[in-house]
C-alpha cells in the first residue's frame, strides 16, 4: 500500500544576516493510510516548521513531500490552494473558526469551497455532527460556544470533506484538561471509525499518548520514535515521559 504522506530528506533553512538556522534538517518519514501519528518536541525544535511545510503553508528549502504520491513541493500557488482544500483537513490550536459564521455555516463553508452541491451539504453536516455529538451547538456562533465545543466544530470541518490527511497543530493547546480529553476522544473516533489519517503536533504528553506512533524532534532532526502497539495508554504515556525527560536532560549539559 502506498503511504499517504512521504517526507524525504526535508530541509528548511532560515537565513538571517550571515547566520543560517536549520529549522528542519534532513527529516524523512512515512505515514500510512489510517495512521494516527504524533510529532513531539520542545518549542524551537522545528516541529511547527515541519507541519507548515507539510500543510503547504510554508515552502521547504530542499527535499520532497509526497501526499498520495503527489509531490507538493513542486506545485504552483493556485494548485496548492486546490490541493489544500481537496486533500488536507486542518485543526488549529486557536480553533480558527470564522467568528461571523454559525457552526453549521463554518462546516458548510469547507464543503462549499470544495464545490459540493448545495443539496448535499445539509446532509453531510448532519452526519458529521452526529458522529462528533455537536448537533446541539450547530446553530450557535463561535463566541457562544466553549473552547472545547469550538474545537469539535473545527474537527467536524476538517473531516467533513473526507481529506486524505488531517493535520492538527497543538489542538489541545488552548483547552482545559477535561475539554482536551473530550477532544482526543473525538479525534480517536475520527481515526477509528472514519479511518481518517491524522498527523498531530503537540508538546503535551497526555495528548500525545492517544497517538499510535510518535516521532520526537530535536534541533530539526528526528531524535527518537515510539510505537504504541498493543500497550495500554498509561504505559505508553510513561514511555513518552521517559523520552521527554531524557530530551530535557540534554539541556542540563549547559549548566
Amino acid at each position, binding site marked *: 500500500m502506498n503511504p499517504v504522506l512521504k517526507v524525504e530528506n526535508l530541509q528548511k533553512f532560515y537565513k538571517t544576516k550571515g547566520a543560517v538556522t536549520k529549522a528542519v534538517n534532513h527529516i524523512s518519514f512515512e505515514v500510512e493510510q489510517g495512521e494516527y501519528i504524533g510529532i513531539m518536541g520542545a518549542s524551537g525544535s522545528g516541529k511547527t516548521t515541519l507541519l507548515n511545510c507539510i500543510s503547504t503553508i510554508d515552502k521547504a528549502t530542499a527535499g520532497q513531500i509526497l501526499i498520495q504520491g503527489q509531490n507538493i513541493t513542486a506545485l504552483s500557488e*493556485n494548485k496548492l490552494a486546490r490541493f489544500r482544500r481537496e486533500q488536507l483537513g486542518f485543526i488549529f490550536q486557536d480553533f480558527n473558526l470564522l*467568528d*461571523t459564521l454559525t457552526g453549521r455555516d463554518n462546516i458548510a463553508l469547507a464543503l*462549499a469551497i470544495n464545490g459540493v452541491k448545495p443539496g448535499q451539504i445539509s446532509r453531510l453536516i448532519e452526519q458529521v455532527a452526529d458522529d462528533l455529538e455537536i448537533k446541539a451547538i450547530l446553530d450557535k456562533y463561535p463566541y457562544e460556544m466553549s473552547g472545547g465545543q469550538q474545537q469539535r466544530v473545527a474537527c467536524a470541518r476538517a473531516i467533513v470533506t473526507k481529506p486524505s490527511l488531517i493535520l492538527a497543530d497543538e489542538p489541545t493547546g488552548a483547552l482545559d484538561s477535561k475539554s482536551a480529553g473530550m477532544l482526543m476522544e473525538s479525534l480517536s473516533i475520527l481515526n477509528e471509525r472514519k479511518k481518517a489519517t491524522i498527523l498531530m503536533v503537540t508538546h503535551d504528553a497526555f495528548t500525545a499518548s492517544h497517538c499510535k506512533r510518535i516521532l520526537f524532534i530535536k534541533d530539526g532532526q528526528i531524535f527518537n520514535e515510539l510505537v504504541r502497539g498493543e500497550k495500554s495508554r498509561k504505559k505508553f504515556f510513561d514511555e513518552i515521559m521517559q523520552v521527554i525527560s531524557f530530551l530535557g536532560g540534554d539541556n542540563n549539559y549547559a549548566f
Partner: protein
Amino acid sequence: MLSNRKRFESQSSLHGFFRKLSSKNVKKSAKDYFIYFFTLMLSVCLFYSFNSISTQFASLGLEDPLSYLAFSSTVLTVFSVLVCIIMGALVVYANRFLLRRRKREMGIYAVLGLERKDLNRLLMRETLQIGVLSLLAGIGLGIFAAQLLSLATARLIGISLTNYHFMISGKAIVLSVLFFGILFLFVHMFNVKELKKMSLLEMLHAGKKNETAGEGKRGFSVLLGIISVLFILGGYGLVFVMSEKDTFKALAVGGLLVIIGTVCFLRSALTISTGLMKRNKRRYYRGIHIFTTSQFTSRLKTEGSSLAMTAVLLFLSFSLTILGPGLGKFVMNGIENATPYDGTIFYAPMAGNTEAGGDPLEYLSQSGFRINEFSDEYADFWTYESPEITAGFLSGKEGREAEKVPLTIIGLEDYNRILALQNLPPVQLAEGEYAVSYAFPAMKEILKVFQQEPRPLKLGDSTLTMADDGIFHHGWENTNILAEQGTLIVPQHLAESLTPQRWFMNFNFTREGDDLNLELHNRWVDAGLNGYVMWSREEALVSLSSDNLLVTYLGIYLGITFLITSGAVLALRQLSQSSDNIERYGILKKLGVSKRDMRRSLRKQLRVYFGLPLVLAVLHSAVTVFAVFRYFEGLHLAVIASVIGFGALVILSVYGVYFIATYLGSRRILEL
C-alpha cells in the same frame, strides 16, 4: 550636580529615542496612513488653490476698481472656514480611528514604563510629522493646481492670457499653514483625550474582543425599508412639485426627507438583502458565498450608519459640483445683451415722488456730474407701469409671486432713440398696436408661446393688439442681472398717460481717453448721488463674471470637500475592516481557498460598500439637479450636459482613486 547631569542625559536619550520611534512608526505605518495622508494633502491643495484666487487675478493682470473680484475671493476665504471645520471633523475622526488601531502598541509602551506624558509626546511627534509632510506636499501640489485654476478663472472671466505668469500666493500659504496648524493642534488635543480615556488593560487586550455577530430583526428591517422608500419618494415629490411655489423651502425639506430616507434605507438594506441571500440555499452554499454574505451580516449595524453618511456627503457633493457651475452658466446666459452701451444711469424715485427731484439730468449736472464731459451720444427716458399689466400677462401663469410684478412699459419714440444709440433700425408700430421686447434667452420660450396667442393689451381706455412680428430681441440697458419679465413697447402718448416709474440714461463714450472708465467712476463717486445707480460696461461685466466665478468655485470647492470627506471615511473604515479580517482570510487560505477567489470576494464586498452610497447619491442628485435646472430656462442642453459631465468626471475620478486605493490597500493588508 551629578544627578542633574544624569537626569539630563537620560532625558536627552529618551528624546532621541522618541525621535527615532516616532519617525519609524510613521514610516512603518506609511502605507496604513496613505489614505489619511492623501486626504490631508488633497485638502491642503484644495484650500491653497481656492484661497489664492486674488493672487490669480493679479497674475492675470485683472483690474478690479469696484472690488467685485476681491469680494468673491473674500467669500471663498470665509467659506474656507467651513471647509476647515469639515476637514477638521474628518481628520479627528480618522485620527481617532487610527489611534484605536494602535491601542495595543500604546499599551506595550505603557507597560514598558513610558508615562502618559511621554506617550502624548510620541503622538504629538507623529501628528507633527504627518502634518508637516502633508502640508508641504499639499502646498506643492496646490501651487500647480492654482495655475490650472487661474487658466479656468481667465476663461470664466473672459480675458486673454497675455499677462499670465507663474504665481505663488504668499497669503494662501500663510492661511494654509495657519488653518491646518490649528487643525493639527486640535487633532493632538483629541488624541490626548482619547488616550486618557483608555485603561491599560483595555489597551493591552485591544483586538481580542469578540465580535457579536447577529442578525438584525427581519420584520423591523422590512418595515424600516418600506418607510425609507416612502421618505425618499416623498422627498423627491416635494422637490419636484412643491418647488413651483417656494423653491428653497421645498429643496430644504425635500432634501431632509431624502437624507432621513437614505439613512433608514441603508440601515435596513443590508439586513434585508443578506436575509434574502441566505434564504436562497443554492446560491448561499456555492463557493465562498457563505463567507462573503457573513462579511456583510457581521457589520450590519455599524456599517449602515457609515454608508448613510457617505451617501449623504456624496449627494451633497454631486449636487453642489453640478449646481454651482450650472448656476454660474445661468447667471452668464445672454451676456452678449447685458451691456449694449458704455454706460447706463438709472434712478428710481420714491413712490409718488416723481416730480420732487425735478429733471434728473439737470440734477446730475448740479451735483457735479456732467455727462457732456464724457459723451455727446446719450438718450434719457422714463419707463412706465400699469398695475394691472403684470408679468403674468406674458407668461400666462398666475399665482406665483414673481408673476405679480408689473411689466415695464416704454414709449415707442423713447425706445427708438435708445435703439439708435446701438445703430439698430427703429421699431415700427401702427396706432393701436404694441410690441414686446426681451433681452435674455429665458424669455424666448415664453414669448414663443405668447406669440401663438397674443393677448390684447388694455391701457386706460384704449385696447392694443400685438403688431405682426411684434417680438424684438434687444437689450436696452446695462445690467448685472440677466433676468427680466419682458418689456412692452406702446405708442408714446399712451405711455406718457401712465405714471412714470424709473428714469434711465444710456450713453456711449465719444471722447478719447486712456482710462475713461476709471475717470467716469471717480467722477461718479465724487458727485455722491443718492438714489442714482450707474453701470458702466466694464463694471457690469466684472460684476457678472465675479458672480459666475463665485457660484462656480463655491460649488466646486464645497463639492470636492464633501467628496474627499466621504471617500476618506469610507476608505478608512474599509481598510480598518480589512485589518480586522486578516485572521478570517488566513483561515480561508488554510482551508484552501485560492487567492483569486478571495480577491473576488474582497472586490464584491468593496463594490457593495462603495457602490451602494454612490447609486443612492446619483439618484438623489439627479432628481435635485433636474428639479433645479428646470428654473434655468433658456440654458442650452449642450451647456447643461457639459456642466453635468464635468461634475460627474471630477467626482467619479476622485471616488475611483479612493476605491482603488482601498482595494490595493486591503490586498496588501490581507496579503492577497
